[in-house]
C-alpha cells in the first residue's frame, strides 16, 4: 500500500508537468489538445538523440552523476530537448492549429489535434522504429527505504520528484512575480482586454506553446527514465494528462499540479483493488468521478 502511494507520487510528478502545459493551452487557446501528449514523445526522443550524440562525442559527459543512472550528457540533452520541443510546438501551431483557428470553431481545433496526434505518433514510429528504447541500459538498483513495510525507491525517481517540484516552484514565481506571468494570466482571463493593455497576443500564444513544449519535454524524459521510451507513449499518456487537467480544473496551473499527483496516486492505489490490467481505465474513472461531483474541477471556474 505505502509502496503504491510512493510510486503514485513519482508518477504524479511527470503527469503534473505534462498537465501544466495542457491546461494552459486548453485555457488560452480554448481547445482540448489531443496531440499534447505527443510533445512528451518528441521531447523524450529528442533527448535520446542528443544523449547518444554527446556520449559518443564527449566521453567525459558519459560519466554517471552520483547514484543516478543519469549522465551529464542527458542533463545537457534535456535542456536542448526543451528548446527543440518548444519550437516544434510553435511550428505545429503555425502549420496547423493557427490556420484551423482562423477558419473554424473550437471543435475543429479538437479534431485537428486528434488527427495530428496520429500523424506525430506514427512518424516517430517510422523514424525511430517501433521497439522501445532506454536512456541507460544499466540496471538501476532501488534503494531500500524501509524493510517493514517494504519500500523501494530508485535514485532516479527521487531526482525526478525533486526536479519536478523545483520546476513547479519556478513556475509559481513566474506567474506570481513577473510581468510575463501577469500577461499570461490576463490573456487567459480576457484576451481583448489584455490586448487593449498592450499585451501582444501572438507572442503570448507562442510563449504558451514554448512553455507547454518545454515542460512536456521534461515530462517525457522523466517518463523515459522511469519506464521506457516508445513511440506509443503519447497514446498511453494522453488520457492520464487529460484527467489531471480536468481534476485540477481547466486553466488552473496549481490545479494541474495537484491533479497530476491525484491521478498518479489514484492509478497506483487502484492496483490494490483492481487487477493490474485495468490500470489504463483508472484515469477515465477519475474523469467521470470529478464530472459527477465537481464538474469544473478542483480549482476551475465555470466558463462556456
Amino acid at each position: 500500500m505505502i509502496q503504491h502511494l510512493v510510486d503514485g507520487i513519482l508518477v504524479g510528478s511527470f503527469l503534473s508537468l505534462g498537465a501544466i502545459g495542457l491546461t494552459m493551452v486548453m485555457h488560452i487557446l480554448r481547445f482540448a489538445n489531443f496531440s499534447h501528449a505527443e510533445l512528451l514523445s518528441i521531447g523524450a526522443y529528442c533527448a535520446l538523440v542528443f544523449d547518444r550524440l554527446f556520449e559518443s562525442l564527449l566521453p567525459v559527459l558519459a560519466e554517471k552523476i552520483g547514484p543516478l543512472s543519469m549522465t551529464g550528457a542527458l542533463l545537457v540533452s534535456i535542456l536542448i530537448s526543451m528548446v527543440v520541443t518548444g519550437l516544434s510546438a510553435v511550428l505545429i501551431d503555425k502549420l496547423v492549429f493557427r490556420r484551423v483557428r482562423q477558419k473554424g470553431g473550437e471543435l475543429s481545433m479538437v479534431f485537428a489535434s486528434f488527427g495530428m496526434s496520429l500523424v506525430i505518433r506514427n512518424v516517430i514510429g517510422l523514424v525511430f522504429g517501433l521497439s522501445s528504447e532506454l536512456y541507460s541500459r544499466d540496471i538501476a538498483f532501488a534503494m531500500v527505504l524501509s524493510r517493514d513495510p517494504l519500500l523501494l525507491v530508485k535514485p532516479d525517481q527521487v531526482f525526478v520528484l525533486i526536479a519536478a517540484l523545483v520546476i513547479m516552484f519556478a513556475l509559481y514565481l513566474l506567474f506570481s512575480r513577473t510581468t510575463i506571468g501577469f500577461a499570461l494570466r490576463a490573456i487567459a482571463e480576457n484576451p481583448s482586454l489584455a490586448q487593449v493593455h498592450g499585451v501582444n497576443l501572438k507572442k503570448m500564444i507562442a510563449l504558451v506553446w514554448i512553455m507547454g513544449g518545454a515542460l512536456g519535454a521534461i515530462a517525457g524524459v522523466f517518463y523515459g527514465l522511469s519506464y521506457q521510451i516508445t513511440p506509443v507513449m503519447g497514446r498511453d499518456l494522453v488520457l492520464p494528462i487529460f484527467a489531471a487537467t480536468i481534476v485540477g480544473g481547466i486553466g488552473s496551473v496549481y490545479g494541474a499540479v495537484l491533479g497530476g499527483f491525484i491521478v498518479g496516486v489514484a492509478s497506483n492505489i487502484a492496483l490494490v483493488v483492481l487487477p493490474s490490467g485495468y490500470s489504463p481505465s483508472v484515469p477515465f474513472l477519475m474523469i467521470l468521478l470529478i464530472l459527477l461531483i465537481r464538474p469544473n474541477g478542483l480549482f476551475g471556474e465555470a466558463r462556456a
Partner: protein
Amino acid sequence: MIGVISYLVFFTTVAAILGIAVLGLNLQWGNTGLFNGGVVASFGAGAYGTLILGGAPQESQLGGFELFYPLALLGGMAAAGILAWAVGRLTLRLRHDYLAIATFGVAVAFENVMRNATTITGGAQGIRGFERPFRQMLGDGFTYNLVFLIAVLVILCAVYIFLERLTVSPFGRLLRAIREDETAARSLGKSPDRVRLISFVTGSVIIGLAGGLYGTFYAFVSPQDVLPILTFQIWAMLIVGGAGNAKGALAGAFLIWGAWTFSGWALSRFAPVEAQLYTGSIQFVLIGMVIVGMLLWRPQGLFPERLIVSQPGRSREKTQAEGFT
C-alpha cells in the same frame, strides 16, 4: 473472375457497414456539432452485445444466450445506446470539449475492459462460436455473403432514409439551430442539452448497429476490432465526404475504405520486406494527414452540406438570395 466478384462483395459489405457507422457519426457531428472521440466504443458495444446475446454458450464464459438474431442485434444497439446515454448525461451540459475527452476515455476504457474481463468477453481471444443467422439454409460460401451484403445494403438504405427524414423534420431543424446558435435556440424555449443528448444517443445506437453487423459478418469479435484507429478511420470518412451531408458521408466511407484497403495491398505487394513491419504506421500517418489536410484545405468536405430550408411555400432560390445560409 469469381474471385474478383467475391472479393468485391466482401469489400462492399465492410464498406457499407462502416458507411452505417459514418451516418451515425454524421448525425452527431454533421447535424448537431458533437465531437465523439470514441466512435469505436459504440461500435464495439454493438458488436460485443450482439455476439454475447446471440452466441452459443461457451465454457467458463458469461453469455451465449442464443437469442433470436434480431433481438440480439437490438440488444447490441441498446448496449451502445446506454453507454452513450451515461456519458452524454455527464458531459453534454459542460464545456464542449469535455464530451470529446470523455468519449475518448470511454473508448480506451472499453478496449481495456474487453481485453481483461475474460469471463464476460473472452479477453484477448475474443468471442467465438457465434452462429451466423440462416447459416444452415445458405451455407458458408459465396451465396451467404451475397445475401448478407443485400441485407446490409437494405439496412443502410433504411438508416439513410430515416436520417434524411429526420434532418428535414422539425427535429432536424432544431438540431441545426442549436449547432449554429445555441443561445438563440434557448431563447425560443428549446432545451439544447436534451436535444443534444437525444441526437448523441441516436447516433451511437446507429454506430452500434454497424458494430453488430460487423460482428455478425465475421462471427467473431476481439479487442483487436475495437482499437482507436477505427475511430480515426470513421472520422476520416466523414470529413472527406463532407460533414452534414449524408450522401457525402457514404461516398467518404467507400472512398476511404477503398484507399485504406488499396494502400495496405500496395504496401504489402511493393514495399521492401524490411518495411513491411511499418505498413500500419504508414497507413496511420496517411489517415491522420487526410484528416488534418481536409481541415486545412477543404473543411466542408468533397461534397459540402447543402442547407435545406424546410419551410413550406418558399423556394430555395429566394431564401438563398436573402442570404439564409
